């Protein structure tokens, strides 16, 4: 019996690879990091949790004890529902090997739950609204989401405060312990790198990965703003009849070439930055957000992104590089890739991080979840290296709620 159980544990290890930690092979005691099926695209992963399975020697006749740890993005209700579901599954299957089945059940539910919970903490508006949602972003370390505009405003405000404080001006209350070093007055985005910022919700230090995302977001936004300004600036005097005629000719030629497929289209969707998600037009409850081709128009930058958009820096944008093909292509690619995922199993994706260049490996297709149900050798393509886990949690809105009230001593003698 023990041998069989040990083999089962090996099977779990094989399926979940680096996401599975075996604390004890017999009786089984495992910790498995479970993620929704997003085909390895971290930017559209809004939830995850560690499932702790602790079985006794009587396993499988006695179902194991189950617990969730380090849950992110779930919130109390969904956290409870997830635990309840896996416990029910375990109970139902008592007597037969169930470890993989439990994990798969949890993964299925996580996939259903893979939508950002609640509302933006800055503006208190929900992320998914009926009438055209605003683009939002996710901090990669703690999974807290914000509207991109809201976060951008806050970021700029912090920067202003920071500048103020380093030039000896007013204090910057948000930047506790910020060093008043010889920071330049420019306030360029470049210096964001060493800018101390904490997640407004859980206070986790925003890590380098996130800084890169926000950085790119801000640069892109600025460049779009600038582009718009320039577009608007063309004075009437330039638009002589000659110029208008030239433009008309050019447009006609362009359209002709385009119809023959000779134009390499600007990568419109690259306005969707790492960590920044444009939600679907008509969000379906329980379905992962879709990067619908049409939704590019909803992003603040619209489709005015020039081909030379600075977003294209290859270093940091690895996780979106898959989203670069044009809309229609993506549609078909999407289906294929999922087909592929399901058939190829895990080997293909192992060790690959953040989606790589596998075009359109993001989720959103309807046929996506459920495909693996019942196929035990299937593994969702989420085998990135184990992510650092932090102690943040879904309950974090109550930051220090009722917390550190402390006695004050005034040190500011005047």
């Amino acid at each position, binding site marked *: 019996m023990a041998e069989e159980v040990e083999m089962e544990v090996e099977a779990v290890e094989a399926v979940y690879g680096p996401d599975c930690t075996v604390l004890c092979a017999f009786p089984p005691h495992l910790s498995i990091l479970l993620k929704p099926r997003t085909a390895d695209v971290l930017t559209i992963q809004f939830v995850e949790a560690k499932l702790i399975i602790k079985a006794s020697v009587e396993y499988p006749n006695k179902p194991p004890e189950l617990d969730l740890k380090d849950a992110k993005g779930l919130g109390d209700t969904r956290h409870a529902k997830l635990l309840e579901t896996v416990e029910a599954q375990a109970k139902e299957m008592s007597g037969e090997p169930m470890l993989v089945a439990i994990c798969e059940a949890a993964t299925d539910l996580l996939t259903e739950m893979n939508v950002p919970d609640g509302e933006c903490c800055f503006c208190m508006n929900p992320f998914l609204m009926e009438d055209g949602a605003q683009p939002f972003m996710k901090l990669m370390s703690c999974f807290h989401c914000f509207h991109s505009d809201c976060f951008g405003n806050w970021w700029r405000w912090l920067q202003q405060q920071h500048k103020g404080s380093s030039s000896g001006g007013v204090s910057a209350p948000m930047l506790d312990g910020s060093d008043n070093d010889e920071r330049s007055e420019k306030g360029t985005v470049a210096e964001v790198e060493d800018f101390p910022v904490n997640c407004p919700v859980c206070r986790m230090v925003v890590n380098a990965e996130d800084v890169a995302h926000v950085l790119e977001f801000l640069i892109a936004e600025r460049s779009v703003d600038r582009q718009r300004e320039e577009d608007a600036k063309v004075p009437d005097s330039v638009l002589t009849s000659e110029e208008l005629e030239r433009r008309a000719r050019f447009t006609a030629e362009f359209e002709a070439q385009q119809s023959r497929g000779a134009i390499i289209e600007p990568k419109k969707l690259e306005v969707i930055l790492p960590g920044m998600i444009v939600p679907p037009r008509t969000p379906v409850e329980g379905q992962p957000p879709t990067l619908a081709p049409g939704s590019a128009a909803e992003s603040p930058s619209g489709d005015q992104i020039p081909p030379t958009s600075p977003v294209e820096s290859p270093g940091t944008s690895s996780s979106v590089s898959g989203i670069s093909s044009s809309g229609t292509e993506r549609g078909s690619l999407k289906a294929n890739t999922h087909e592929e995922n399901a058939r190829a199993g895990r080997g293909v994706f192992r060790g690959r991080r953040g989606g790589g260049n596998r075009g359109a490996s993001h989720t959103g297709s309807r046929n996506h979840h459920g495909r693996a149900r019942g196929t035990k050798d299937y593994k969702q393509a989420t085998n990135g290296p184990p992510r650092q886990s932090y102690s943040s949690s879904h309950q974090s809105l109550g930051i*220090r709620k009722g917390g*550190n*009230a402390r*006695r*004050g001593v005034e040190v*500011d003698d005047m």
Partner: protein
Amino acid sequence: MSTSTPPQKTLSRIAANRLQKELSEWQINPPAGFKHRVTDNLQRWIIEVNGAPGTLYSCEQYQLQVDFPENYPMEAPQVIFIQQPPCHPHIYSNGHICLDILYDSWSPAMTVSSICISILSMLSSATQKARPPDNDRYVRNCRNGRSPKETRWWFHDDKV
């Protein structure tokens, strides 16, 4: 007694929208023990606090005044007790409250409601009714209606 009126700029559009949201949320689901006194001033809220039952402040009523800056919620609101402030080791007799979330540890994710809960929790955990030891010196320095946000606070009591 200072009912300090900070030099206020009118609320930004973002701040006004957010406060409107908070107010409607409060009306649906107010924090237990608090009552918002209805005024037409969105920028200054007056809130009645009822001491929690079973604590040193049960059956006592106090008033909080919350003033919102132009850049709320980026910047913390100014929160003070008005009229008769409760006698508490972290509350000065001029109504200023020594609570880190109101100053250094403010985060835009916090709301008036969460502030209220923090303050009630601070009141409830008191083991004796007393003024802070440096009350007189502090209050002397705060004449002319200085805002507590100009104070550089030193937080050291984690047990609250």
